[in-house]
């Protein structure tokens, strides 16, 4: 069975792609952290309480690095953005202590383009400080901040903040929301994180527009009207399953998903796509695992 053969997107179909080591591949082959975390999130959002998650949790627990973060896959010796996905899981899944260390790793991450050193360098080279002071997250340490890792880290830290409020968490969450608003494209949506390049406006993507709307849940709707309209229009044009799922999650978080929106008709290309479609469907039924 191929991922693209998935029809109903059920927990059982997602489970069918689980590797013997407990993790999930993107398509086939070795286990990666991202699809494994999404498969577990789908399990958390579903009602199949009897599903045995022990092997998946073992795989995930064994992949955590000494610094508290997670690598994209076990053979990669670097903690990266995927740590936010694991931190989105309920703390009980991988254990309170592991979860707390993941959150600490996230809070400790600083994108290179927001460091004092980088800002001083820009001042020296270009004669002015960068206007964008907001702080997001990078995909890979030692690089700049981008939309997807910032959205996922924001969502993870928000869930943590609701359980254990702290000034440090609040500061990072607010900084990330400023980052997202600063990186919004002229059309009202979001792309990978480069709204203007060498003076040219860049267009938005459905995936990142949905992610940003989700991460901005609770923001003033008046500031997001263009984004809602664009997201609703993108729903009908979107060419990827993940894009359709993220748009639905993002719009539903703001109660902006039109009631007559048909379910995504796109083919699932990865386990992550299937899990996201499942999560979007559950969110429309009232339980958004990214926000609760």
């Amino acid at each position: 069975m191929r991922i693209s053969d998935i029809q109903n997107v059920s927990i059982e179909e997602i489970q069918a792609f689980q590797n013997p080591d407990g993790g999930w591949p993107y398509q086939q082959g070795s286990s990666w952290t991202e699809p494994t975390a999404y498969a577990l999130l789908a399990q958390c959002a579903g009602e199949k309480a009897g599903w045995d998650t022990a092997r998946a949790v073992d795989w995930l627990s064994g992949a955590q690095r000494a610094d508290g973060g997670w690598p994209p896959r076990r053979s990669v010796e670097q903690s990266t953005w995927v740590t936010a996905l694991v931190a989105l899981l309920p703390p009980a899944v991988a254990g309170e202590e592991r979860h707390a260390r993941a959150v600490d790793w996230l809070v400790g991450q600083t994108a290179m383009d927001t460091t004092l050193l980088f800002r001083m360098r820009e001042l020296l080279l270009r004669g002015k400080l960068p206007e964008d002071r907001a702080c997001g997250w990078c995909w890979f340490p030692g690089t700049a901040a981008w939309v997807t890792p910032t959205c996922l880290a924001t969502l993870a830290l928000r869930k943590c903040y609701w359980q254990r409020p702290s000034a440090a968490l609040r500061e990072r969450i607010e900084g990330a929301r400023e980052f997202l608003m600063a990186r919004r494209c002229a059309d009202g949506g979001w792309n990978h994180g480069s709204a203007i390049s060498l003076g040219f406006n860049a267009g938005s993507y459905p995936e990142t527009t949905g992610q940003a709307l989700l991460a901005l849940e609770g923001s003033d709707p008046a500031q997001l009207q263009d984004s809602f309209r664009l997201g609703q229009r993108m729903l009908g044009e979107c060419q990827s399953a993940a894009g359709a799922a993220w748009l639905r999650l993002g719009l539903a978080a703001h109660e902006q998903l039109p009631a007559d929106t048909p379910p995504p008709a796109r083919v699932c290309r990865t386990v992550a796509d299937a899990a996201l479609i499942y999560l979007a469907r559950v969110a429309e039924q009232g339980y958004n695992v990214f926000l609760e």
Partner: protein
Amino acid sequence: MRNGITRREVLIGSAAALGLAACARQPQARRARPQVSVVRAPAYTQQVYDTVRRLVAEHRLEVRGRRVVLKPNLVEYEPGSSINTHPMVVHAGLEAFRALGAQVAIAEGPGHRRSTLDMAEAAGYFEVIPGFEDLFTDLNLDEVSRVRLRRPVSRLTSLYLPHTVLSADLLVSMPKMKTHHWAGATLAMKNLFGVVPGGVYGWPKNVLHWAGIHQSIADLHSLFPRQFAIVDGIVGMDGNGPIQGQPKPVGAIIAGSDPVAVDATCCRMMHIEPGRIEYLTLAGGLERIKAENTQQIGENPDDLSTPFALIKEWQGLRRNRV
């Protein structure tokens, strides 16, 4: 990135390099002039298949029984635009290498958009290339191993790279002939950014930017000693490439075993001075990229050259400017 590197990773990297080096005909003597073919191809018609087959054949590549990986340039969901390598050119490459007895696969790892197969479908690859899904590997999500850079010019010391390209006997870079707002021009060498796995480094592959774009291009080039390049210059892109520029008809396909020489030839055809493209000088040196140090086959490149519009930041690249 960590400092150490495992024996397994060294072995995999060494095996890949040896495999690539052993492929195809006997390597040209180090100082021999690289051959670059320029052929007329006025439109995306059935004639492209014959053109590419003859072009590949004239380079006498010994790939029978070898594993050849075609690496097109897939960037955006815009069928009919000049952003992506045209699927007919890729299909023609597939058939040309199959005709030589090679086992041919297609692989790509786009830099910004995550759903590679959906993008390939939108770009017409499913329609034009029979069995595309079975031939294709998403390099962003492939198995990876870490490979050490022996003499890096960028800040990188090693890179995780996909097994599909590491295990290839011949890597065929199949870019679109385009201007690029960060690199000046994107051709066969810049196209190798797509072999760096997004699954490890993200979308975009920002480690390459922070390590120096030109330097990273040169380093990636050094990791694949056995390459072939087929540039889709039938319709290229000028202006604010590689996404927001304008279609630029050139009517040519350019190919050769030395990507530095192929890219330098393309630059001259685009009225760009190759000596001002930093990654070309880093990888090849000023002498190597001179026209007189390349053996041109087929059409005279000057006969098919046409000035590509350049954004103001890259006006200094213009060839023979006063």
